[in-house]
């Protein structure tokens, strides 16, 4: 049963992945005018021959379907082209930027889970209490907050006003960065036992991850609350209580464990939103990640970079989605198809 579902689910992703490539590909060809000339417009001393050469390099002189096939082939071979703006392979650019984005995204997830899960549990067990109502309102505020504005307000309060936390960048100016191993500064500075850098990196991460994680925290809290409410109604909880187990044990050991399944699924599915949200948060916090690269590339019509990164985002989403489904099927026997 499960194997069949798995197979079916995998099959479904094929047209989706093809659809993604088609959308990404057509982005470049929707643009009015010539992308190469638009792109090179700001460079100045560029001759018509140079433009022709670049056009050939990009294969823009070929029929559309051929270009599309070439594009697909490139993706499969791992050849994502060369950035028009920087003149370096897109792969290198992305590899350079990805760790920063990953670190921020993971930190945002961690922050939101640390806030949201306890709050959700408390709201559920003290249903209709003041705590419940307040946390409901807070979570509604969380999903109604423009994250970029939250970022600005956080900078305004903690950086400009109080001067407690830095308002941008990954590491202070006076701290020497640890040698790059993973690209994640927290991990690298731990490996290098560079406590100064670790502390600085943590301080720099706090505000952007709060701004990025707030909407996710709000969502997670609501899901945790409602799935906790579902779970506590189940027989095995009543049974556990009847056995005379301590309420805390019942809640944490029996209820929460099961209630976390849908929560984790939702978080996985929202990884995409989180990655998308990076775009503005990174800009506000001068965070040298993928999100900033995408915005800049869109603005300068650096299509190879735009294509590759949008592709990367979409495929990450598909993969997370698939993983979430599979985990969900494994953990929750009720899901059958």
């Amino acid at each position, binding site marked *: 049963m499960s194997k069949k579902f798995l197979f079916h689910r995998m099959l*479904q992703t094929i*047209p*989706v992945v093809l*659809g*993604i490539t088609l*959308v990404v590909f057509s*982005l470049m060809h*929707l*643009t*009015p005018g010539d992308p190469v000339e638009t792109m090179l417009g700001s460079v100045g001393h560029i001759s018509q021959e140079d433009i022709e050469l670049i056009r050939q390099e990009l294969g823009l002189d070929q029929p559309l379907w051929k270009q599309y096939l070439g594009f697909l082939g490139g993706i499969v071979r791992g050849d994502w082209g060369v950035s028009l703006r920087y003149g370096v392979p897109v792969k290198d650019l992305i590899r350079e930027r990805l760790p920063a984005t990953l670190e921020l995204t993971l930190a945002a997830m961690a922050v939101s889970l640390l806030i949201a899960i306890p709050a959700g549990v408390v709201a559920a067990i003290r249903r209709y209490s003041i705590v419940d109502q307040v946390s*409901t*309102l807070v979570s*509604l*505020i969380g*999903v*109604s*907050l*423009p994250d*970029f*504005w*939250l970022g*600005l*307000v956080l*900078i*305004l309060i903690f950086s*400009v006003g109080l001067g407690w936390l830095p308002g941008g960048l990954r590491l202070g100016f006076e701290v020497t960065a640890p040698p790059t191993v993973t690209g994640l500064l927290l991990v690298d500075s731990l490996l290098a036992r560079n406590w100064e850098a670790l502390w600085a990196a943590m301080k720099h991460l706090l505000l952007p991850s709060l701004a990025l994680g707030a909407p996710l925290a709000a969502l997670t809290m609501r899901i945790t609350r409602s799935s906790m409410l579902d779970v506590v109604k189940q027989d095995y909880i009543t049974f556990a209580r009847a056995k005379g187990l301590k309420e805390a044990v019942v809640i944490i050991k029996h209820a929460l464990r099961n209630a976390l399944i849908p929560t984790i699924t939702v978080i996985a599915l929202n990884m*995409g*939103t989180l*990655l*998308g*949200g990076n*775009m*503005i948060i990174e*800009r*506000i916090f001068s965070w040298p990640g993928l999100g900033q690269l*995408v*915005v800049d590339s*869109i*603005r300068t*019509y650096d299509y190879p970079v*735009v294509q590759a990164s*949008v592709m990367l*985002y*979409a*495929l990450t*989403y*598909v993969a997370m*989605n698939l993983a979430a489904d599979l985990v969900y099927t494994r953990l929750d026997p009720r899901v059958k198809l």
Partner: protein
Amino acid sequence: MELEQVLYQESPMWSALRDFWRLYRKNRLAVWGLAVIAIMVIAAIFAPYLTPYHPEKPDFTALRKPPFWMPGGSLAHPLGTDHLGRDMLTRIIHGGRISLTVGLVVIFFATSVGTILGLISGYYGGRIDAVIQRIVDTLLSFPYLILATALVAVLGPGLQNMLVALAYKEWIYPCRVVRSEVLAAKNKEYVEAAKAAGAGDLHIMFREILPNVFGSVIVVATLRVAWVILMEASLSFLGLGVEPPAPAWGTIISEGRRFINTQWWISTFPGIAVLLTALGINLIGEGLRDALDPRMR
């Protein structure tokens, strides 16, 4: 008085509305949300009559004035002025016109398209369902803002293109909700009965099923208005929204960002407006869910 009673008794619409309000009212926060949005809408409609200033005209004699409670501020500009001396309150009120219009227009189109496709997808199933659902899955996998940004960059800025960039994906949310509701409703007795009576597909879809899924559609649509308003603000913040000097909230926040070290109010107040609007709409959505769809609680 008498007439009202007569109406209440005789008109089924009135009694339905009254029932609805009785349920809705139970959610206090939802009532507050309704109040906030009502004020926003009224302010947006009567914007030109509410303040003596023009939202777009610079005033070089009143540059970057602080809000009234700060030294140098005055009640003439209760929320201060921006870098071109324009009254913040006036700009925020006018900005509401843009945000609310974008939210409503996008959701209207998205909901119409999404509902119809959802009905078709759920009712007919099979190949057509598979195709629509794969399109939905594909669109779902793109981060909302990134593709919208790319679209605006390609199409050029402006209100119309922003509407397109926001609506391109928005229809999939009502579509998914309607589809699952239709799947559930398909085997219900009333549909069976209509089929037995020889009703056509269109009749069943729009006359029998649609009214029964309408509640969920309204709830989803309402909640999505808040999201679209947030996205509109984000696009404007990135400089991809309506053209200046139109006072879109996101645009004002992004302009004010330059002044964050010195004139914090320029980017702070429009953000509060976005927050209140989105929150108000979300609260209404919650209330509607309670009132229209008691199952959900």
